[in-house]
């Protein structure tokens, strides 16, 4: 047993897992407040990372400025998407809504691949590259930064929903749209806000992952990795999304370890979360923290 490797992989799992958790949170945010299952979540990461990359590389902006521009762009993009594509779908059956976001996802991915190319590009260095040692394990500073970023975002989410007026409005809308509307909350604004926040935070995660692994079309696959995470956590629980993300991150790295040491099947990093997902759906369909729907005739 190679303990050092196991711990190293587990640490990576925790760091990647928090990023999954952040993206899963964005997914849950949209699902909770607008009842839309966003299959295009991964493309938000992709677009955000590429926009930031081109601002930094082609326009030679300093990181902070380019990053802020990216966030503003993604906010506008999220709102636009909600108004143009998702608003006509309100009240349609769930299959249609799922299909619209799937259509969006392949449209955006193809467009991005066309514009920016399919090869991976490295981000300009923002942090020094020296490896930092934490408790005897090697960690890249960008990874540490991403951990800090993720925790910061999660704290921000918590504060937003707990203390801000709009956060309260969003929670009310998620609880019951009609009641919220009759209390004077503009449900339209809440929907647009949910997409804007989700797009912005996803782009942030995309930039962070891009800094570590380079920007490429592989980023959109994170959007698919989110599904095991949200199902594990229960679809409508933000805390569950974070926990689910962490579990998936650790799970895939443990699977990688077991596979590399004993099984030698290959490709377990990608596939293991889906096996767990299928098993979980058979055993506990509402996840660990999800609301059990009780149906009445």
């Amino acid at each position, binding site marked *: 047993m190679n303990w050092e490797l196991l711990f190293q992989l587990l640490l990576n799992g925790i760091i990647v897992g928090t990023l999954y958790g952040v993206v899963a949170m964005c997914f849950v945010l949209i699902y909770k407040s607008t009842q839309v299952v966003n299959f295009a979540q991964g493309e938000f990461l992709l677009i955000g990372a590429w926009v930031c990359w081109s601002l930094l590389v082609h326009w030679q902006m300093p990181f902070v400025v380019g990053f802020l521009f990216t966030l503003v762009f993604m906010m506008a993009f999220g709102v636009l998407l909600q108004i143009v594509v998702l608003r006509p779908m309100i009240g349609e059956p769930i299959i249609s809504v799922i299909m619209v976001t799937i*259509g969006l996802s*392949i*449209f955006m991915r*193809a467009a991005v691949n066309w514009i920016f190319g399919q090869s991976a590009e490295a981000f300009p260095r923002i942090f020094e590259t020296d490896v930092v040692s934490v408790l005897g394990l090697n960690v890249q500073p960008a990874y540490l930064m991403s951990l800090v970023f993720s925790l910061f975002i999660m704290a921000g989410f918590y504060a937003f929903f707990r203390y801000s007026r709009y956060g309260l409005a969003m929670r009310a809308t998620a609880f019951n749209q009609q009641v919220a509307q009759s209390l004077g909350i503009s449900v339209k604004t809440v929907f647009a806000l949910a997409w804007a926040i989700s797009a912005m935070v996803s782009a942030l995660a995309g930039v962070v992952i891009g800094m570590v692994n380079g920007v490429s079309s592989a980023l959109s696959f994170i959007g698919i990795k989110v599904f095991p995470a949200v*199902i594990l956590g229960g679809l409508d629980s933000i805390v569950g999304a974070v926990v689910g993300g962490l579990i998936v991150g650790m799970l895939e790295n443990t699977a990688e370890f077991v596979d590399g040491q004993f099984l030698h099947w290959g490709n377990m990093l990608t*596939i293991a979360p889906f096996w767990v997902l*299928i098993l979980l*759906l058979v055993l506990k369909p509402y996840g660990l923290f999800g609301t059990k729907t009780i149906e009445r005739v």
Partner: protein
Amino acid sequence: MASVSMRPCGDFRTSYKDDSRLFDTALTARIGIGFLLALYLLVGLPLAFPGLADWPVLGWFADSYFLSLGIQICLYGVAAMGLNILVGFTGQISLGHAAFFGVGAFSSAWLNNTWGIPVVLAIPLAGLMAAAVGLLFGAPAARIKGLYLAIATLAAQFIIEDLFVRLDWFTGGSSGAMANAPELFGFAFDTDQTYFLFALTITIVLTVLATNLMRTRDGRALVAVRDHYLSAEVMGINLTRYRVMSFGLAAFYAGIGGALYAHYLMFVSAEAFTILLSIQFLGMIIIGGLGSVKGSILGTIFMVLLPEVMAGGMGMLQATEWGNQPFLVNGLAFLREMAIGAAIILFLIFEPDGLAHRWRQIRAYWSLYPFSH
């Protein structure tokens, strides 16, 4: 979702027998059957008399480009029909249809190569094998629905796709598997013309089966499960049984489509059955019209012709002065994917009932012409 087809005023159905007719009127029956007979003749005649292939109109039907489009429409159409039984009639959703299509393709090649089972028998057996896999992954479908089912089938797609590469003995691993052309009584369907007739025959049989399914108790039970599953259950319909059954049926159709695909290309490789194909299948039935057998075929025609039309348009654009830029020329593959995505979105927003609905409106307009009220 599904709407009653429009009929002229005064044309009422007074018995259940009337209500479950395959064709609305004797005229539509004649047109439908006549169209298919004409198709057989137009493709069959140049085959029997090769000299006829030089004739102006008959020549098109001997052209391998048009025939290959026709074959693609047949084999994808069969799979799309299966998906429509699941999505359009039962209201379940599957993002893993391409995986079952792939299971059919590999099974048929494997049965023929390893066990020496004739291809004509291997194709239905492959359908059954795909159905078995479908039932396996459809078992969770008995308990979950909607979004959870979408995600479960998405997971199934990735797992099966991974198994295609992993199971060397079954699929030939990453190098793929060879498949033979079907043979019947010593006659090999190995040209485009013969294979088109072969695929067309199977497609017609399966279309009739799917249409007939909707006239049986089982078919009506599926629709009841879709429209209001709680009421259906109260009325004594076994939800689990019908949900799993429609999953199995969908996988069976996908398997047959996949087997046709394998024996047409004579080579199967795992890369063909990605999530993008699954999405294309869903696109076909959405564009064609959910809950309509005819719509599945119309949607397949749309989806198969879309890239061809785009490639044609691109060719014309390149002939012009400003269109011949590498940016556009290299972007065709991306434009194709974008067009698929855009078609799905636009149809869902502007024509949620699909081409089948449009078709019914056109028909109603002409059958009532010139007094269209």
